[in-house]
């Protein structure tokens, strides 16, 4: 999965789950102030991201630091890289 795939799939979540127009989906957008999400939406965002990327992130502390759409892209990218190095580690073993 490329970085562009991550951006596209994340943007799909915002379009499908929160009915946000594509044009607004830029990395610098604050998901609360600019895109209008609230505490309930954050729960749904986690559910939708888990579903979209096949990941488990509900108890990940880093979620609390997410403010912008770019933060989400980077978070998923970091997860992907962690996963890759984990896989590499398993292979070495």
């Amino acid at each position, binding site marked *: 999965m490329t970085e562009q795939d991550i951006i596209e799939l994340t943007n799909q979540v915002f379009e499908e789950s*929160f*009915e946000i127009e594509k044009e607004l989906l830029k990395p610098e957008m604050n998901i609360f102030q600019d895109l*209008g999400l*609230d505490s*309930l*939406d954050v*729960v*749904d965002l986690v*559910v939708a991201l*888990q*579903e979209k990327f096949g990941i*488990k992130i*509900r108890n990940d502390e880093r979620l609390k630091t997410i403010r912008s759409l770019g933060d989400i892209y980077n978070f998923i990218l970091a997860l992907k890289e962690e996963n890759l190095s984990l896989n590499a580690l398993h292979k070495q073993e």
Partner: protein
Amino acid sequence: MKRVVITGIGAVSPLGADVPAMISGIEAGKSAVRHMDGWDQYIGLRSLVGAPAKLVNEKAIPRVSRRSMGRMSKFSVQAAEQAISDAGIDRALLTSGRMGCIIGSTMGSAESLNETFEIMIPDKDLTKLPSTKFFQCVSHTAAMNTAQYLGITGYVLATSAACASALQAIGAGCDLIRLGKQDAVLCGGAEELHPTVTGSFDILFATSSGYNDKPEQTPRPFDAKRDGLVCGEGSGILLIEEYEHALKRNAKIYAEIIGYHTCGSGVHVSQSSKDSMAACFRQTLADANINANEVDYINAHATATIHGDKEEAGAIREVFGDQAPVSSLKGYMGHTLGASGSIELIASLIMMEKGCIYPTLNLESVSPECNGILHVTEKLTKKINILIKNCFAFGGINASIICKKDIK
């Protein structure tokens, strides 16, 4: 005690998205009952008919409000908007704390409850549940969603008494206004059609199952060939208001609510009781301080179950005799359960306004056990000054409301 009048009405029904659509459907003698495609996949579900309502323009409700709404809450919000606009109230009343919102339903959204279980049960996994499912499933979903959407800050209550829910909501609103606790209350009921809902009646053999291939011929209230009820969906909302409050703003008044009563049968959870129904009628008449012979029209609950219709006809016969015309609207719209009291009261208010009585659709041959009351089988021109609307629910719950047109 203060007096209560009805100043606004709104409905989403199986016959259409507003009150005029419902009335023109009834006047055309139209049945909204359909064969429900896909229901035959349920093992043991004998009744494959229903009266669905069409959800129109739901995206007009902003996402942040809509996300916590199941189907029934969307119906309720749309009907409430109609009632508010019909009443022409100043929107400042909504946020004054002097206006309440009481909307009943049998339970929360059946569709959302089903979706919740489908998500949760297979893997016993709660992490896949969206945050808003809870708000769609709770028993007060229609009341709280409607109140939140409109910004209502007065009393917010949800009556939950199955098919008597809407009348209890109107009655509770009426009591609050009578006591001076609220100046106006938006009240009524909401319900949605789902195989689990029809199924709950079907396992008790209370649904119609002999007309799956000719759905427009069922339900058949009071008819010799009736074989059970048909579930429907929608919402009926009324704006009720303190009389002086309505007078001050020169509001259009449909009728005054002069009597209300609700009671339990204390007999059986599912079997209707004639004596208990008659007791409810008598208490409602006493509350209205009128005699039975002053009632010009009886809008019956009559869902077309074998036992329920017989008991209701018997109770009407005992209290009102055979002079007051009686009709049921279930043949047109099915049984909209928790919404039926308000949807059918609204249709009755239109009959009162127009000076006519709509007949019981599908009543071709009165069942001998339902005889002795004045059935309306063709549209009747008649001045209605006083009407009574009845609802009887599982759990042995009875409710009746009496409305009067000529207000002094």
